[in-house]
């Protein structure tokens, strides 16, 4: 209980800090959305349009930073993230609502799968030291050292194409309207395969490695020897005694990695033209779209915090020692 309260205090603080950083960073960025827009249209937008854009975006009014900050908090509490500039006047919240499911579906599921697969392989590698699994480690390390985007582009060049099963871009067939129909879901799954495999390949080795190391560490604990001494079936010793304990430290690592769902795989979304939130951030940064940038950052931070909270709860459930009432 006390543990949880401490965590909650930590979350509140972090949320505050992140939101504050979130507020200030875009404001420190030189340049503004209008010039970025000019750049985008390189000449197809005449200089006369600049003024009308400033007016349109409401950038012609100047408020003090402090009052902006106060307003910002007011907005945050109302769930109002402002209007995006890139997609003016679409509310940021709508853009996020539109892209978030894609990211969560693709990267979330992949990260989870990567964690599960990596952890399982790590359990085996750590349990059977020197086995084939263990010998594959350097290979997976090499794979994980390849930058995501490079792997992704290579995958597109080699695997995707007009005659291939793998589409090279997008989240679903153009022309389909998102709905819960088998056609759409099938298309979405098909489009997510290549990016998912890319993420999987480059992230799974990390999990294998940490889990293997934890397994090795745990395997030399006395209670493992005792479990063997008890004559328990090997599987039970491996799963319920060794893996169960080795998993604990990885839970928080997993939570942290959820933070990278949005951040770390932004490139995959860019490379595969995936309509997710990472791509939004990329766009927002390019277009100096502060409201969108803030919104994405907010979502990222909050999701990391939520993931952490979940991990804490999971930890609490998995590790009875933390449950101890102070």
């Amino acid at each position, binding site marked *: 209980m006390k543990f949880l309260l401490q965590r909650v205090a930590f979350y509140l603080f972090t949320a505050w800090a992140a939101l504050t950083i979130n507020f200030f960073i875009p404001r420190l960025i030189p340049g503004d959305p209008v010039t970025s827009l000019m750049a985008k249209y390189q000449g197809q937008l005449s200089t*006369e349009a600049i003024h009308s854009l400033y007016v349109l975006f409401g950038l012609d009014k100047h408020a003090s930073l402090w009052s902006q900050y106060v307003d910002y908090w007011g907005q945050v509490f109302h769930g109002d993230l402002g209007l995006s500039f890139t997609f003016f006047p679409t509310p940021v919240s709508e853009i996020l609502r539109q892209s978030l499911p894609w990211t969560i579906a693709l990267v979330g599921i992949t990260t989870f799968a990567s964690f599960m697969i990596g952890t399982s392989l790590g359990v085996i590698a750590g349990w059977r030291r020197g086995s084939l699994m263990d010998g594959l480690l350097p290979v997976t390390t090499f794979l994980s050292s390849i930058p995501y985007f490079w792997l992704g582009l290579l995958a597109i060049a080699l695997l995707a194409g007009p005659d291939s099963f793998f589409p090279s871009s997008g989240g679903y067939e153009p022309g389909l309207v998102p709905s819960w129909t088998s056609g759409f879901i099938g298309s979405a799954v098909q489009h997510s395969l290549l990016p998912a495999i890319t993420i999987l390949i480059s992230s799974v080795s990390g999990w294998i490695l940490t889990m293997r190391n934890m397994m090795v560490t745990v395997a030399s604990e006395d209670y493992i020897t005792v479990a063997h001494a008890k004559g328990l079936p090997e599987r039970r010793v491996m799963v319920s005694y060794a893996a169960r304990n080795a998993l604990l430290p990885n839970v928080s690592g997993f939570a942290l990695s959820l933070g990278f769902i949005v951040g770390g795989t932004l490139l995959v979304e860019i490379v595969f033209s995936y309509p997710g939130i990472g791509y939004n951030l990329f766009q927002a940064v390019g277009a100096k779209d502060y409201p969108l940038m803030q919104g994405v950052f907010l979502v990222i931070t909050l999701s990391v915090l939520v993931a952490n909270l979940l991990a804490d709860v999971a930890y609490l459930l998995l590790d009875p020692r933390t449950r101890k009432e102070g």
Partner: protein
Amino acid sequence: ACSNGDGKAAENGSGGGATVLNIGMPNGPQTENHNPFLGSSSGASLGYRWMIFEPLVMINGIKPTEPGKPWLATEWKWDANYTKLSLTIRDGVKFSDGRPMTADDVAYSFQIRKDNEGLNSDAIPYGTITASGNKVDLTFTRSQFTNQNKILTVFVIPKHQWSTIKDPTQDTLKNPIGTGPYTVKSFTPQTTTLTLRDSYWQALPKVKELRYTSYNDNNAQTTALANGSSEWSFVFVPNVKAVYQDKDPAHHKLWFPANLGIHGLWINTTRKPFDNPALRRAMNLVINRDDIFNQGEAGYFYPKVESMTGIPTPAGESFIAPEYKDLKHKVDVDAAKKELTDAGFKLDGDTLKDPTGKPVTITLTDPAGWSDYITDLEIIKDNLSTIGIKASVDKANQDAWFKNIDEGNFDAAMHWTNGGATPYDIYQNIMDGKILKPVGKGGVSGNYGRFNSPEATKALDQYANAADDATRTSALNTLQKIMVEQMPIIPTSASNVGGLYSTKNWVGWPDEQNQYGPAQPTQQNALQIILNLKPAGSQ
């Protein structure tokens, strides 16, 4: 050559049966926003706003001097000094909700721009707006000669819908109502589908459905074009021949004509020794526009500027002064050297020394991500070394670069100019003394090179406010003379209004032979093109 296993285009069937046109833009996921006024709307970004909202007059973007084609206005008349416009509105035009379009709607379309600064993107100084019968009369506080096309191409919106909208600048117009032949059928962030109306004031186009797909980036768009899932787009494709055309030489076409806007190397004319026009002229003489066109612009994207006056051709052909008709850019190192020696520069081995004896060096900057400009700069850097100028290419942060350009803190940079119906926009953007600000002060919206020429300013003023064509012509000739002799910027390429398209399913696209409009899907002329398309097999 027509192997296309992809399901997307296949549903079009081959020959005769095509009903769908797939249009693509590399603009990333869109949000549902059909507000035609906002450049940020998906309608504008993908270009389908022109399928819904129609202009009063259709003006050919690559031939701005040709008289426009009557569209929603059947007649239009300017007074002599272009401060007054009378429009006659077409009868029998119906909005997609069935209500007829009236002069009231047209007046309202102007009024809404007048009332909302944010929507008046061309900053037109509207005076009075009156509607009576099928006539609409407009007055302006200044001469609108240079803006005439902008005013005539204003699109018309239904008053009955827009008058109920609280803030037209902040409405995403989920249900757009226009006079165009298409209405929005469905929207997804990736794809917007438009479907044909059952009635239209002209003959209905053959294309039953338009699918506008937004790809995340140029690569994705290019891939889609190459494999045929995208049939029309406007995108930069490096090595376009290998990557796009060769994939289906019979059908993969592109046409990128110039319009009246240019790209060039802007030079800070306040910095020594670049304040010396002779040096700028010499630089101009060594720049290899072929390399820029072929290597930097993939051989098609921004067409070469041929005329020394900087006026792109053929769009601006008619404006070029007689004495400059044949004055074309070409690389001539010897002439450049002569120009320099005449001006007191000395070529000392590999190094050019200015009259004071200092070596001439120059930093060429552009934002890091703009790979075509950067490529251009690399080429220019190379070219300049032939006359001993030591150039270096600085790839800057985009925001910092903007600020520096705006405040005049740069040696030279690739940048564009405004474009418009006449070369006036180009020249005004380059040399207008009215927007001149000292180095270090920003907000200039043009004349980044701080070119100070009262003569040019005067000529610009004359051109914009003249009451007769003769004055205009002479003013424009003066401007051309200044351009050729002083070279405030070194033009390299023309702006483009082009497109890549596939003739596999649809034919009737504009091209070199049939220049009825620019081939860019996001231009107003796109509607004209759609109206002109026929299924490929039908020929």
